C-alpha cells in the first residue's frame, strides 16, 4: 500500500514551497531516511526523507512546481531491498558504501544472533546465524520489509568461504560524497551573487587596543548586570549602524533598476550551524542595546549549532557581518549575501608592529574587509564606510558623541 509524500510544515509564515529537486527517480530503491526530495523556500532548502526502505512510485509535482504545506506531492511504497542492498541501516545520501569484509564463521558464542522483539530476522535465519556464529550485521536482508531470510544468512556465509575479490588498495582509495542539499543551495547562491553583482573588496585595519581596554574596564559590571559576556560583536554591530547612517548606500538594495533604501537596519550575523553557514538576522538593530545584541547573537549561535534557527529568522536583512577571526583568519574577501549590497568581514586580532607617531609599537590589530556591490556603492562610499568603522571602533566615544 503506497504511503503519501506530504509537504511538511516548514515555518510559521510559510504556506507554500517550491519543489527543488527529486534526488531519487521513480522506481529506484532507497534505504529508510535517505533524503528523497528537497523543498525550497527563499531562504532554505528542506529535505524530506524516505519514510521506509522502498521506492517512489509516483511523483505528482515535478521540480520547479509549487505545492502547499500539506499537499501530497508523491507516493512511496515500502519494498524489500533488492539483493545486495543494505536495507536495515539508515544511509543518508552522503554515505559512501565501503566494501565489507565477507563474514568468516567465528567461534560460536551463545548470544551472537539477535532475536529481539522488533528485529527483522526470521526465526530460521536467527537459528542459522547462531549456528554459524555470525552476526546479523554481516548479512544483507532480502525479505519483504527488510526481513532477513534463512537464505540470506546461508548466502552470506557461502560468499565468505569463497576467496574474496580484490578490493581497492588501502592507500589510494576515493570517497565520493554527493553534496548535501544545503551545501548545494549555498553553492548556488554564492555563484549567482558573483555573477549578478560587481563585487569588490576594500580593506582597512583597526587598532583594537582602545575597545579592548574599554571592554576590560566594564566587562565584569556588564556581565553582572546583563548576565552575558561583553564581546566585540556588539561594538561592531553598533559601529555598522553608525557607518550605515553616514553612508546609507551600503545598506541599499538594487531591485529592478531601482535602489531601495530602508529606514531600519536588519543585520545578519553569519554563524556556523550544524549543517552549514546560516545568517540569522537581528531586527531593528538601531534600537537594540549592547546587551540585547550580545544576547541575541549568543542565542543564534546556540540554535544554529542545533539546526534550530527558524526560516523567518533567516529572511530579510539589509547588511551582514561575518567573523572569520574566530577561526583564526587574518584577512579575507567575504562574499555579499544577495540581495544585500555589502558585507563586513571581521578577522582575528593579532599583535602586530605598527608605526604610530614615528615609533614602532605593538598593537592588537584586526584587518577588516568590506565587500560591496559596485553597481550600488561607489569606491569612495565603500572606503568611507570602512574608515568610519575603523574610527568608531578605535574610539568608541565617537559613537556616543556622534562625531
Amino acid at each position, binding site marked *: 500500500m503506497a504511503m503519501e509524500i506530504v509537504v511538511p510544515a516548514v515555518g510559521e509564515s510559510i504556506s507554500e514551497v517550491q519543489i527543488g529537486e527529486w534526488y531519487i527517480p521513480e522506481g529506484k530503491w532507497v534505504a529508510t531516511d535517505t533524503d528523497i526530495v528537497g523543498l525550497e523556500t527563499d531562504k532554505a532548502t528542506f529535505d524530506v526523507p524516505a519514510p521506509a526502505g522502498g521506492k517512489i512510485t509516483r511523483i505528482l509535482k515535478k521540480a520547479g512546481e509549487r505545492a502547499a504545506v500539506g499537499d501530497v506531492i508523491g507516493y512511496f511504497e515500502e519494498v524489500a531491498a533488492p539483493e545486495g542492498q543494505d536495507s536495515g541501516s539508515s544511509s543518508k545520501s552522503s554515505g559512501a558504501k565501503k566494501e565489507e569484509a565477507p563474514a568468516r564463521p567465528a567461534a560460536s558464542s551463545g548470544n551472537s544472533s539477535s532475536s529481539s522483539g522488533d528485529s527483522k530476522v526470521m526465526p530460521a535465519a536467527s*537459528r542459522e546465524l547462531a549456528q554459524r556464529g555470525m552476526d546479523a550485521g554481516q548479512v544483507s536482508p532480502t525479505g519483504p520489509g527488510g526481513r532477513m531470510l534463512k537464505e540470506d544468512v546461508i548466502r552470506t556465509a557461502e560468499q565468505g568461504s569463497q576467496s574474496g575479490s580484490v578490493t581497492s588498495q588501502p592507500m589510494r582509495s576515493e570517497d565520493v560524497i554527493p553534496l548535501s542539499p544545503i551545501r548545494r543551495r549555498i553553492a548556488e547562491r554564492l555563484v549567482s551573487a558573483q555573477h549578478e553583482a560587481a563585487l569588490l573588496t576594500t580593506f582597512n585595519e583597526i587598532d583594537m587596543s582602545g575597545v579592548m581596554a574599554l571592554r576590560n574596564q566594564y566587562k565584569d559590571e556588564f556581565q553582572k548586570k546583563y548576565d552575558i559576556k561583553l564581546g566585540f560583536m556588539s561594538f561592531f554591530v553598533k559601529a555598522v549602524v553608525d557607518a550605515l547612517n553616514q553612508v546609507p548606500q551600503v545598506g541599499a538594495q538594487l531591485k529592478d533598476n531601482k535602489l531601495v533604501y530602508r529606514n531600519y537596519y536588519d543585520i545578519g550575523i553569519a554563524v556556523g550551524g550544524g549543517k552549514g553557514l546560516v545568517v540569522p538576522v537581528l531586527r531593528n538593530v538601531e534600537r537594540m542595546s549592547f546587551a540585547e545584541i550580545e544576547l541575541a547573537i549568543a542565542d543564534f549561535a546556540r540554535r544554529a549549532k542545533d539546526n534550530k534557527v527558524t526560516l523567518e529568522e533567516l529572511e530579510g536583512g539589509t547588511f551582514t557581518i561575518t567573523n572569520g577571526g574566530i577561526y583564526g583568519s587574518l584577512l579575507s574577501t567575504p562574499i555579499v549575501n544577495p540581495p544585500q549590497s555589502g558585507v563586513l568581514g571581521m578577522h582575528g586580532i593579532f599583535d602586530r608592529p605598527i608605526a604610530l607617531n614615528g615609533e614602532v609599537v605593538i598593537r592588537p590589530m584586526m584587518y577588516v574587509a568590506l565587500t560591496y556591490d559596485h553597481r550600488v556603492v561607489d569606491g569612495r562610499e565603500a572606503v568611507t564606510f570602512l574608515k568610519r568603522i575603523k574610527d568608531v571602533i578605535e574610539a568608541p566615544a565617537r559613537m556616543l558623541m556622534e562625531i
Partner: protein
Amino acid sequence: MSTTFDLIVIGAGPGGYVAAIRAAQLGLNVACIEKEKALGGTCLRVGCIPSKALLESSELYEEAKSHFSSRGINVGKLDLDLQKMLGQKNETVTTLTRGIDGLFKKNKVTRFQGHATFQSPDKLVVRSSSGTEELAAKKYLIATGSMPATLPGVVLDGDRVITSTEALEFEKVPEKLVVIGGGAIGLEMGTVWRRLGSDVTVLEYLDRILPGMDGELAKQALKIYKAQGLKFQLGAKVTGVTVNRKNCDVHVDGADDIRCDRVLVSVGRKPNTENLGLEEVGIQTDKRGFIQVNEHYETSTPGVFAIGDVIGGAMLAHKAEEEGIACVERIVTGYGHVNYNAIPAIVYTTPEVASVGMTEEQLTEKKIEYRSGSFPFAANGRARAIGHAEGMVKILADKKTDRILGAHIIGPHAGDLIAEVAVAIEFHASSEDLARCCHAHPTLAEAVKEAALAVDKRAIHF
C-alpha cells in the same frame, strides 16, 4: 444527461465492487454499473455464497443422519424441509447483497443499474428497463466476470440440463443427478445433492478429478468421495444430452447412456463480454474471448482496464478482488501488486481441499528442485477428537533456500488452514520459519507445523 466520473466500474461482482470501493477510498469519483438488481455478482448471488450455505446445510443433514449416532446422539427419523433450506440460503444472499448497497452508500459510489455498452472510447451507454443513460469517465474498469460454459452437443435448457445457478434452486431433490465436469463446482454441487439423497454420478473427461490441483491430493480426494457414495466415470467424453419428457439421457462416447433427472454442466466458465461494445473501442480479446491486458491490467485501449474472471486466469473471487485493488491502486498511486504465487484455491467438499503456490507437477516441469513434507490428519489429536481425521497437509520447499513454494491440504477446514501458508509465502518464509512458529494445541493447525517439520524429516508426531 452526461456525467463525467473519474472511474466507471462495469460489474459489481467481487472484482468490481471491491475496486469501486477502493477507488472511492483513494479519493476518486466512482460509478459502478451492474445489470442485476442485486449487487455482488456471481459470487454473492449464484456462486460462492449460496453454494457454501447449501454445503453447510447439507453437511449438517448428513452428519445428523449418518454420524451423530456414533457419538451417542440419536435423532430418530430425520426430516428434510428443502424449501426452508433454500430459504436460509436466499436470506444469506440477500443480507450480503444488501450489505454491498450499504458499502456503496458509505463510500459514495454512484450505482447505475443496467447493461453497459461502449459506444466510443469516451461514451458508455447504460440500458435498463427504465431507459437509456449516457455516461463518461476518465478511466473505465471492466469487471463483468464470467458465465457457465457448455460442451458441443449439450444444450442448456434451464430445466433439466442446467448450470450451477439452477442447481442452487432445485425444487426437489433429484433422484438421479449427472454432473458433467469433475472440477470444484461439479464436486461441490454433486456433494450437496448426494448428501440430500440424490444418486450422483460425476463424468470427467480427464483421467483424474480436480484438474490443476496437486495430483496426490486429487487421488486421495477421489478415494474419499467414492467412499462417501459419489460415483465417477473418468476419461469420459460426453457427446450430447437428449432431453425426454420426464428425464434425460447423457451420451458418453464408447459407453452406455446414463439416464437421469437432471444434468449439471460444470465444465468451466467463459468470459462475459456480450454486448459490451468491445469492438467499438478496439479492446482485444484472446481466442477464447478473455479480454487481454498488460501487467497494469490495461486493455489494448488506453484508459480502459479489466480484471477478474473476464481476463481469465484462476476464476476465483479473491483473485478478482486482488486484481481490482491492484489495478485501482496502480492508477492512483503508481503501485499495485498481486502475488499470484500466494492465491489460495479451495474446494468446499468434506473434507475440504485447499492449495496455495505451486504443485509438485509444476515444480517438476519448471525443473525446480524441492523437498516435500507431509503430515496425515490421522496423527493430529484435534482431528481425531472431532472425528474428521482424513487427509493430510503437504508442504513443498525449495531444496536450496528452503523457501516455501507451495502447500496442499486435504482435510477438515483445509480452506482456513491454508491461509497461514499463504501469509508465510508472502513473507518469503522458509519451511523452517513456519516450523519454528508456535501453534496451539490441540488444533488442526498443528498439522501444518508438523508438515513443515517433515520437510526436514523432523516431524515429531509422525
